[in-house]
């Protein structure tokens, strides 16, 4: 077939960035997501994959390629309160923030648009999922208000530690820190289901599925439906049930099955484990009153 260039509908491009989400991990599971407003840019800067040539018999014998890593710079006018803990800030008392603390790892996602000469930016979009991210300290350039209004644009350099790359149909993938989903190449139903997971839905927190679950979501592997069992409560002790496919959390920290004594009013939330989803209208949060 003769090659043709720049045909109608083939002039594709990518643009824009929106729908930033910060995912807060607990015991390796990114089971709570919060919206990241004011996102202005994500500059992906992958590193590694550098060639080291090896010579033998007076010729270039082979190229050894180093491991590849995902790095990026996130720019935004603001950041969610929950991001402070990942930016080396602790809050011992509400409203009092202490810097230079331990920086934790987090996950995040963002969306970029795909366009072409026919549909413009309505063609589709890419959803980028990032795992094991750690933010480096960054500048905050506070300056006087002058004769032109301007909001400060913050930025964070992000490095990543890859997570288990998962497997599908007998193929095991290397550990990875980034996955991209192309809306123009996956089924609308699978995409809607996926988006209800990463952006949350009525009664269910947003969460970031690990790579293996992402593959299964788009490979037609049906998720198991589970109804979370309500924890029991007696004598200021919450008993977390052992329900397959349900992760129970208190204050964003995943809990093992068993007794949890409380010393104040405490809420327990449930999120589906990898490979599971909750039945519609299932209760996912319970509040227990402490009695002195």
């Amino acid at each position, binding site marked *: 077939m003769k090659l043709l260039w720049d045909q109608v509908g083939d002039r594709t491009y990518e643009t824009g960035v*929106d729908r930033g989400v910060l995912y807060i991990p607990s015991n390796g599971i990114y089971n709570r997501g919060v919206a990241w*407003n004011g996102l*202005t840019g994500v500059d992906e800067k992958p590193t590694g994959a550098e060639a080291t040539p090896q010579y033998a018999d007076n010729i270039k014998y082979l190229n050894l390629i180093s491991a590849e890593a995902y790095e990026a710079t996130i720019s*935004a*006018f603001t950041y969610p309160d929950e991001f402070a803990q990942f930016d080396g800030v602790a809050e011992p008392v509400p409203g009092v923030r202490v810097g230079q603390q331990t920086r934790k790892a987090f996950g995040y996602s963002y969306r970029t648009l795909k366009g072409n000469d026919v549909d413009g930016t309505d063609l589709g979009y890419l959803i980028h999922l990032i795992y094991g991210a750690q933010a480096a300290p960054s500048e905050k350039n506070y300056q006087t208000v002058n004769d*032109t*209004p301007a*909001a400060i644009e913050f930025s964070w350099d992000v490095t990543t530690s890859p997570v288990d790359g998962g497997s599908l149909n007998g193929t095991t993938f290397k550990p990875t820190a980034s996955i991209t989903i192309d809306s123009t190449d996956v089924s609308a139903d699978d995409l809607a289901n996926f988006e209800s997971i990463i952006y949350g839905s009525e009664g269910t927190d947003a969460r970031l599925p690990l790579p293996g679950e992402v593959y299964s979501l788009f490979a037609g592997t049906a998720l198991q439906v589970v109804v979370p069992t309500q924890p029991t409560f007696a004598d200021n002790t919450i008993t977390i049930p052992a329900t397959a496919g349900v992760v129970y959390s208190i204050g964003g920290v995943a809990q093992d099955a068993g007794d949890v004594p409380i010393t104040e009013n405490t809420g327990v939330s449930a999120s589906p484990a990898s490979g599971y989803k909750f039945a519609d209208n299932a209760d996912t949060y319970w509040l227990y009153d402490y009695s002195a």
Partner: protein
Amino acid sequence: MTDSPPVSMEEQRRLDLHALFNTLAPNVYFQPPTNVQMRYPCIVYQRDYRNIQFAGNLPYRSTKRYQVTIIDQDPDSAIPDRVAALPMCAFQRFFAADNLNHDIYSLYF
């Protein structure tokens, strides 16, 4: 008796600016029609520009800019100095015409 329509946030912001100008000069006009007989000294202001910053593929924040003209017969009028002291205000130019001194500023509000 009918209720007056609710004032939008944008309109309220402009009314706040008008009230601020009223504390600086005895006569204040917002984009006056040509048939208005102006009294001096006065502040005449009009919409000029809107500064917009984008995020998430949408306008994230914006601020309106106004062109503010102080018209006074007194060349040593204190009104321009009061306007110049406002935040996000910058002097543009000065001219005199018909024995009236015109000081023009741009002001984000």
